[in-house]
């Protein structure tokens, strides 16, 4: 189910030259904010939770997920070089699974690690906040990667749709319509974090059993369906 060559190619596509710039800028920004806030406000659980929840989980993780998830397969389909990969005797679901592993690893590396570092800087893991949000970022990385990898195989405008989901659905509708929060990767991962953190530091609108079921369900179904899409991929011309 795992092909080292495909993995190596995907790593190089994701972390090559300028493309990695965004991936590096975001974590650096988060840590810089954490340092600035610590200097401003001192160690405070509420503030730490605000920064990690408001910036790291709400903005940074989805964006990195979009870049890594769609970037793992989108450009190859876009420029047609996927045919050289598909022509090799590698099973299509294996390609998807390998790319998913790589996307998850990259997303985790660039989102969960800086979240943990920022959490330590903000309040030295008081009330388990740093650990809780890191776990949320780890869990969200998996679901986001699977979801956006699927989008990459379905649409040529995967990045735009991924961003619409992350920004409009989770951020805008999520804050206005309470029901929309039930269908949000962010809330599912926060509900896992809620279990870890101390009382009242992290809140989620979704119960843990439902959140876990949905997280696993979305990841598995998205990966399976992406494999199916790749089996019958139609290469289209530009536009």
């Amino acid at each position, binding site marked *: 189910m795992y092909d080292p060559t495909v993995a190596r190619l995907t790593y190089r596509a994701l972390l090559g030259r300028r*493309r990695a710039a965004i991936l590096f800028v975001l974590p650096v920004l988060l840590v810089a904010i954490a340092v600035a806030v610590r200097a401003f406000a001192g160690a405070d659980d509420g*503030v730490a939770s605000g920064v990690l929840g408001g910036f790291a989980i709400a903005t940074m993780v989805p964006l990195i997920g979009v870049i890594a998830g769609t970037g793992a397969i989108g450009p190859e389909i876009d420029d047609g070089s996927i045919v050289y990969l598909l022509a090799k005797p590698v099973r299509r679901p294996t390609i998807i699974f390998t790319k998913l592993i790589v996307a998850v690893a990259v997303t985790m590396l660039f989102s969960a690690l800086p979240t943990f570092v920022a959490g330590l800087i903000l309040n030295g893991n008081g009330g388990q906040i740093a650990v809780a949000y890191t776990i949320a970022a780890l869990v969200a990385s998996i679901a986001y990667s699977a979801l956006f990898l699927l989008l990459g195989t379905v649409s040529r405008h995967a990045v735009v749709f991924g961003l619409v989901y992350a920004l409009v659905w989770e951020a805008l509708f999520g804050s206005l319509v309470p029901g929309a929060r039930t269908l949000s990767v962010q809330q599912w991962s926060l509900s896992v974090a809620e279990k870890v953190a101390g009382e009242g530091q992290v809140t989620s609108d979704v119960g843990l059993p439902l959140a876990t079921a949905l997280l696993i369900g979305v990841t598995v179904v998205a990966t399976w369906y992406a494999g199916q899409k790749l089996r019958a991929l139609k290469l289209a011309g*530009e536009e």
Partner: protein
Amino acid sequence: MSTETGTATGSDTSRIHNIGYRSYDGVRLGRAYARRSLYSQSLRGSFGLGRSAKSKVLPMLLCGVMCMVALILVAVAMATPTLTKLPIKYTDFAIYLQAVIGLFVASQAPQSVSRDLRFKSVPLYFSRPIERIDYVLAKFAAMASALLILTGLPLVILYVGALLAKFDFGDQTKGFGQGMVSVALLSVLFAGLGLVVAALTPRRGFGVAAVIAVLTITYGAVSTVQAIAWETDSAGAITWLGLFSPITLIDGVQTAFLGASSAFPGGEGPGAAAGVAYLIVVLALVAGSYAVLMRRYRRVGL
């Protein structure tokens, strides 16, 4: 058409035939015409006109959302007899719907410049009588005009609706004028930033992500830090933090000069003195993005 004339000297086996090519002696439309064409094609392309049906969906949808929100606001204003003005200020509209504007820039700026770079059609443009400055100006102006249409159209709807509802003409006209100045500034600023980021990435997908990152991440970072500054009673810092993201820059300028109420935490917008700093930063960013674009196209694809 004669084929026997123009015989070259030399042996019988080698001859040059005149096959009747004629030089063009019609009207030459020149550089200004080429620039205008590039502008109008880019502007149409931003809304998917002249492109496939699929590429019309997103820009039209975003434009529709903007106008729909404006229509709903007008409907609310008309249905509520006690109101004497619109439910929101003209200047607030673009701030509330910044996600939609951001998505529009992110999806359309890369389609405007990235594909020319990726398919190496830039050298073809420059084989026409246009210069580098014409290309950059035309693309910049087209993107800014597209954004002005996207942000100005709902304001026009609001204004017409307000006049139909017989709100005070003087007040509404003043507010509308202020709103239009503010969205014009926003359009130029966003177009510049979007095109710079898009021109640096020949891949469309990464261009989209990079533009949205510049717009959203800076806003997310600034508003998070501002909220913390507000909680920790350092209100002075809120004003200066606003300098670090495009949408808060616009917010600051219109709060200082265009009678808007700031969306900063606690409504702590900049006063006139800080407003000048905001305006200088906005103008510097616009000039800077123009300079970067000029530099980017100095030797591209050649």
